[in-house]
């Protein structure tokens, strides 16, 4: 009787194993969408076309990969404290991943380390943060973008003249007169762009960067900075603006002045900037891929959660857009988010 039972058990197990194993195939190599993930996206500011487009990209990915996306942003790009508080909140809320566009390279380093300590992966998007714990950076190469901007502007100026730069950073902590040598609280992308621009411009002895102004995150602030600059340097032949807000402010001032003598290279591709490009106020603009940045950040966040290997750095590229190439179909696709 005993041997009979053993036989039966063996046989039964065998048959069951065969029937079960025939049902379950190998697991797919794409992301499983069967479970919901909580991903917190914290960017620099809650307004502006750039961040909206980034959010659109993130939302597209969230929809695709079944992500519950929590979007957070302070009112202003310079509000580092607020951003730190938001990251802390996300840690408390036990986000699965935090995607961060850091307003300050060093200012958010500590809180990112904290997140990593709480075993929450952090992915930085657009702007890097000074922490080794960041899983990956998704965004453009700021230095390269700065160089592209400088190259075109100097070309437009014929290789000589005074240039003013309007950059963005945490103006409340860093004085206008440049780096004080103490802790750098600026945003990494702003620094990189500026560095790229200055390094390129340095090759031209006749090109002189007369001023670098830092705007906080409002168009009106950028406008007044531009006016001041134009008043202060009447010989100014070129302006480079290194983010969307600064570009919009400066473009408005230049358009109002009807001063065709001032060439301007803008940054980012808001519809109003396209308008300025088309009417000739702005000669060119350096664009990034905010949609891709948002989408890829969320996608890699999910992949990181899935335990897949993700690249250490994802360069989504920059491009210089002028009147001539703005209507090329492939550029249309980059410049204007497809809104139905």
């Amino acid at each position, binding site marked *: 009787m005993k041997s009979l039972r053993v036989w039966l058990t063996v046989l039964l197990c065998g048959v069951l194993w065969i*029937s079960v194993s025939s049902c379950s195939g190998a697991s797919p190599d794409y992301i499983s969408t069967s479970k919901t993930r909580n991903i917190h996206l914290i960017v620099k500011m809650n307004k502006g076309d750039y961040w909206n487009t980034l959010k659109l990209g993130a939302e597209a990915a969230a929809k695709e990969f079944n992500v519950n996306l929590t979007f957070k942003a302070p009112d202003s790009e310079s509000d580092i404290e607020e951003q730190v508080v938001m990251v802390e909140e996300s840690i408390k809320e036990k986000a699965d991943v935090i995607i961060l566009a850091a307003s300050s390279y060093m200012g958010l380093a500590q809180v990112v380390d904290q997140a990593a300590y709480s075993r929450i992966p952090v992915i930085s998007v657009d702007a890097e943060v000074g922490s080794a714990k960041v899983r990956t950076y998704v965004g453009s190469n700021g230095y390269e973008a700065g160089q592209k901007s400088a190259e075109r502007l100097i070309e437009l100026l014929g290789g000589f003249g005074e240039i003013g730069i309007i950059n963005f950073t945490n103006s409340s902590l860093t004085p206008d007169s440049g780096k004080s040598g103490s802790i750098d609280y600026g945003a990494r992308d702003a620094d990189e762009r500026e560095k790229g621009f200055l390094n390129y411009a340095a090759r031209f002895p006749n090109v002189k960067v007369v001023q670098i102004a830092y705007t906080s995150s409002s168009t009106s602030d950028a406008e007044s900075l531009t006016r001041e600059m134009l008043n202060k340097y009447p010989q100014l032949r070129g302006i480079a603006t290194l983010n969307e807000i600064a570009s919009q402010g400066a473009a408005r001032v230049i358009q109002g002045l009807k001063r065709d003598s001032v060439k301007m290279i803008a940054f980012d591709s808001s519809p109003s900037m396209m308008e300025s490009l*088309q009417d000739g106020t702005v000669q060119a603009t350096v664009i990034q891929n905010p949609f891709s940045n948002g989408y890829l950040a969320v996608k890699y966040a999910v992949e990181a959660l899935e335990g897949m290997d993700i690249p250490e750095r994802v360069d989504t590229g920059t491009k210089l857009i002028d009147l001539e190439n703005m209507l090329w*179909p492939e550029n249309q696709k980059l410049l*204007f988010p497809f809104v*139905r």
Partner: protein
Amino acid sequence: MNKPKGYFFPLRPGPGKSGRLRLSSKLRSIQLIITLTFMAVTAAVAVIVSVMLYGKFANTAEENANLNMQQIIEQVNYNLELYVKGMGSIFATAEKQITSTPSIDSPLLYERMDTLMSSREDLVSVAVFTPQGQYVVGTPGQTMRMNTGLESQSWFTTAKRTSEISYSAPHIQNLFKGRYTWVVSISKLIQYRENGELRTGVLLLDFNFRTIDELSKQVKLGKRGYAYILDPLGNIVYHPQQQLIYAGLKYENVEPVLEYAYRSYLDESTGEKRFITVRTLAQTGWKIVGVAYYDEIVTTKRDLNQFLAWFLGVVLVCVIAVSVFLSWLIASPIRKLERTVKQVAEGDLNTPINVSGAYEVEQLSRRFNMMLQRIRQLMEQIIYEQETKRKGELEVLQSQINPHFLYNTLNSVIRLAERGKTDEVVTMIQSLSRFFRISLSKGKNIITIQEELDHIRHYLVIQSFRFKNKFRYEITAQEEVLQYQTIKLILQPIVENALYHGIEMLPDEGLISITAGLQDGLIIIKVSDNGLGMSKDTVNGILSGSVKSTSGSGVGVRNVHERIGLYYGREYGLAFESELEEGTVVTIVFPARPAGEAMDEQKEETNL
């Protein structure tokens, strides 16, 4: 019957063989065989049926999914055709209104065009341009931007090139101030009047994607499946993830799509298996492409799989339960039968076999019982026959006693007569006559103890003449013993033995003493002599037959022992006690049975 009791049946296997035999007999047990066979057959059938069903169902499911998808795409295609046709008719309406208006700048035309605009949500703008790209009229009233690059835009160039209505690929509408919107443009060369003059111009209608989007949203191809629209050049007109495709984050393998107008195929270019269904719109040449994920289509397959796995599991469990029960049902009576038969084989022929269960087993048990009964009968018969035969032999032996003895006695009588001892002759003859009368006993084999004692007395009288009074004898018996029965002629061989072997060689006078008594329902007769006695070996040899008497009647005491055993049972018979130089005592023991009580008398008579 000195053969072993299990004679009729095979002997049990020896200990050396039993180990191997037990293992293989386990494997060959009916229950196991039935269970395994039943299970194997049922499992095989279930698996085969499942596989066939699975194949069939899976195919059908796949075909259905495919068909379903094609129908959905067909439906979308149809709706889209309707939509495109609608756009065409709006374009025709606009054209007609413009051509029929005497002057292009009349307020009436504006009004009509505004009405047209408001009738369609997805109509973004209507405008007329000169072939040189100058803006003539449009609604809503907009100011044009500078640097539009209009002359090089595809809708403009195509319209100028052909007289047909043309549909553009999606592009950004950059002509008018306000917003940049993604539109599809319909354009054609038209005739219009300006201040009475007939002129040629390009009419442009821009549609946004609202309606197309809504149409496409209706497409439900599983959870992840979708439909997209491609223009004849391979530009994506509409895609649910258009922005992702534009941003280069998604990829759609459009090359095989472009090759065919009407087709369904399996695509693996993205690493995932996807079903692609292509249909083409008549007016625009747009292709509507349905994409369904294979793994979603095969969810039915997976469900089926799971169901079949469960089904198989349940079937197997049931089969096991049923087969175990069934085999038990069949095997247990057989096992019981086997056990009983084994008991029988071990010698217990009286074991009753009453096994209930299957009809065959019951019959088998009944037949076996009958067989057993028959065996018992036959065995009894054999025993009986054997005994009878033996008895017969003994009778013959017994009958040999008399002629020999008669011969000796008559010799003695002759000698006495020659010597003239008339009285002694008379006594001799008298005793002889009495002796023979008892010997004959009318042919009876059973006589009373009285008669037997008389018989031996006469014998002793005759022998005392022969041995010339070399011995004395005394016969004592309890009064009540005399009427009990005994086999006749049991004492004569013993006494003869005592005379010839014990007393004949004795220098002194011998003494033979016979006593008969009753004790505990047993007759005990003792014959003792004071003769030479026997050695232990001789004593032991007598009953086993190894010591043969060389003189006398030739009928040994062993025969007496055997006869008593045959008639009364093996436990009865003779017992010897003997000492050399001292004498011998022979004790006869058998059950006391009153005279007249027949015991095998009938059979005895018929057989003799």
